[in-house]
């Protein structure tokens, strides 16, 4: 197949699906359009991954504005997999919302358009060759998901949407300032004008960039994209937005959007390491990683809302990912990427199943859900397995990737940081297990405890498949190993 088409398809297919929803609305015939587009995205991503493995130059398209290398292809696989799960679960989720009269045909049409445009923007972000286009795509995800966060139009949803847009837009504005300054440093180092924001060109010229300017630029870029990645200290929007959005959107936001923002940091890190040495970004990333883990641990301890619990768990996992990136060795980067995929699969399965629990119980308080294991064994089982996966239990792939990050950190001289991280993760395990026991075990509540939690087959398939994939990856990554290695290579892994 023409490589140009392959690079354009991941952006084009969801964009076409968005146009389809805009024209025809969300109805029986179009409900599966989103899933079809996501499946196409995933297929294109896999073909691209096969093509780009071991080829550092990558495939360029759209007049040099887009470029796919192994890292982009890997991120596309994560986007495609989570988007497919979310889009398979969407029809039954929206059908239940419509049946409960919580939403109407106008809102569901908007849901179709916005989710597809959101997926297209994420695909554009990981394919952009130009850091400026990457920035525009990441900011576009904020705008596109604003009304998805506010979907229910309640006071809580409006509040969450407001905080989300304000904090993320301001945070990402810092990254824009960082880009402006990096552009300034690049032009000053005689980087040709048309490549002055291209990450590959900048990485080649990194040694010539002025360190005084780059220090400010890199700090702003890490802080700015870190806001979107949910890293402390700019994480305040995340628990609100992720707990208020409809479940499939939460799955997308938590499972991939955070990692897409982190992908931007990985591209910046290559340039920063060349210009400033590895020490600068390493220090920054260790600080935000430990801060994120500490915030997550502190707020998970007394968490009474299971959707917020999942959201804080995302902050925890982005902290682990940032810690791995700080280590920066080849083993660490491969583990970071595997962690991103494992977290995407596990977290989307959890958010999707939490959506059905929420629809049945009508509340997201932990105390409102009791004895789930007896009332709804399938949902409870999926929820329990998902939590175990996220806590890094074997056989799930998050166990393998966490072990990889810990080993790499001890080898790379960050043993003290990883020791602190492990202590915080133990606190998190204890906190999450405690809440899980309350929700899953014990006798059903007396009042309203009879409400059945219905898990439609179209939602059960992606949830179970996601968890199964996560477990299989933990045992044998198979052909992914070479892709992970060549993607890790591109992140400028040392040694």
């Amino acid at each position, binding site marked *: 197949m023409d490589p140009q088409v392959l690079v354009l398809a991941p952006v084009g297919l969801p964009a076409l699906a968005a146009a389809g929803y805009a024209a025809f609305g969300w109805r029986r015939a179009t409900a599966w359009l989103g899933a079809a587009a996501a499946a196409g995205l995933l297929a294109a991503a896999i073909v691209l991954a096969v093509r780009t493995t071991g080829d550092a130059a990558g495939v360029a398209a759209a007049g040099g*504005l887009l470029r796919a290398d192994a890292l982009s292809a890997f991120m596309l696989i994560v986007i495609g997999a989570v988007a497919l799960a979310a889009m398979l679960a969407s029809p039954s989720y929206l059908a239940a919302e419509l049946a409960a009269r919580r939403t109407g045909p106008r809102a569901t049409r908007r849901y179709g358009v916005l989710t597809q445009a959101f997926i297209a923007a994420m695909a554009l972000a990981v394919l952009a060759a*130009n850091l*400026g*286009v990457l*920035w*525009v795509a990441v*900011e*576009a995800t*904020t*705008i596109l998901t*604003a*009304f998805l966060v*506010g979907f229910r*139009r*309640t*006071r*809580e949803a*409006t*509040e*969450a*949407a*407001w*905080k989300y*847009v*304000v904090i993320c*837009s*301001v945070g990402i*504005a810092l990254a*824009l*300032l960082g*880009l*402006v*300054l990096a*552009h*300034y*440093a690049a*032009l*000053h180092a005689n980087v040709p*004008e*048309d490549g*002055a*924001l291209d990450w590959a060109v900048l990485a080649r010229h990194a040694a010539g960039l*002025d360190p*005084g*300017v780059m*220090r*400010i630029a890199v700090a702003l870029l890490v802080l700015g994209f870190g806001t979107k990645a949910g890293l402390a200290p700019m994480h305040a929007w995340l*628990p*609100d937005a992720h*707990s*208020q959005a409809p479940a499939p959107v939460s799955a997308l936001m938590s499972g991939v959007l955070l990692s897409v923002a982190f992908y931007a940091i990985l591209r910046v890190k290559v340039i920063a390491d060349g210009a400033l040495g590895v020490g600068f970004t390493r220090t920054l990333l260790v600080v935000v990683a430990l801060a994120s883990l500490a915030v997550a641990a502190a*707020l998970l301890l*007394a*968490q009474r809302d299971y959707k*917020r619990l999942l959201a804080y768990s995302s902050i925890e996992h982005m902290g682990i990912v940032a810690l791995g990136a700080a280590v920066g060795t080849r083993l660490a980067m491969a583990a970071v990427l595997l962690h991103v995929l494992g977290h995407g699969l596990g977290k989307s399965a959890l958010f999707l199943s939490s959506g059905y629990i929420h629809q049945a119980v009508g509340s997201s308080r932990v105390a409102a859900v009791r004895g789930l294991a007896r009332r709804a064994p399938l949902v409870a089982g999926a929820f329990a397995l998902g939590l175990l996966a996220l806590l890094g239990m074997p056989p799930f792939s998050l166990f393998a990737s966490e072990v990889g990050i810990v080993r790499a950190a001890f080898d790379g001289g960050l043993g003290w940081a990883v020791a602190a991280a492990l202590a915080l993760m133990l606190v998190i395990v204890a906190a999450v297990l405690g809440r899980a026991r309350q929700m899953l075990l014990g006798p059903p509540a007396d009042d309203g405890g009879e409400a059945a939690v219905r898990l439609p087959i179209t939602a059960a398939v992606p949830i179970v498949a996601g968890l199964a994939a996560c477990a299989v990856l933990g045992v044998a990554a198979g052909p992914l190993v070479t892709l992970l290695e060549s993607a890790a290579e591109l992140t400028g892994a040392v040694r």
Partner: protein
Amino acid sequence: MTDQTYVQLLDLACGAFLLTGVLVLWRRDLAAIVRLFAAQGAALAAIVIVLGVRQASTELVVAGLALGGLRAGLLPYLIRRALPERGGPDAEGRETRPVVNVASSLVAAAVLALVAYAVAQPLIRIAPSPAAHALPVALTVLLVGFFVLVTRRRALSQVVGFLLIDNAITATAFLTTNGVPLVVELGVSLDVLLAVLVLSVLTNRMRAAFGGTDLDELRELRD
């Protein structure tokens, strides 16, 4: 244009840019704050046009005019549309209880200017041109924007704070490198425009759900 007139005109435009930014801290009336923001958009356009005339670059002059249209015309219009109608409760159109009062805010602005001068030094050092020497002005407006964002309690003041930050970043881009590449600049402008549209819709929803736009009312979600 002689060197001297260029520097004078550039400094004049940058001065207006800074002054309008700081005055946002002084006014409490939301309509006046929006007018100041529009004036700042015009000053930003003037900076870009002066740079364009100096470099005899038609592109820059056109970019300046387009920026002026967006930031002195369209964005203020959109915010004004989201202002409460006249005759509504008086408190709605005013910043009644800022976290930091006006006098202290102005003192804070002076401190922020000092910080901006310190931070800008490495940026000026690599290319000490008259435009680069104006960078602390842009960074001061950036910090003032942050200050507005965290100390003002009306939804629309926060929007203006966000836009001050954005104006400051655009000014930095033009003062350092004649702006980011066109495709990026277009994308950024579109994103900012859409962000303001989204925020104005959310302001209206907030008014419907909470009966006002006081951000202190936003406390449904907490741990």
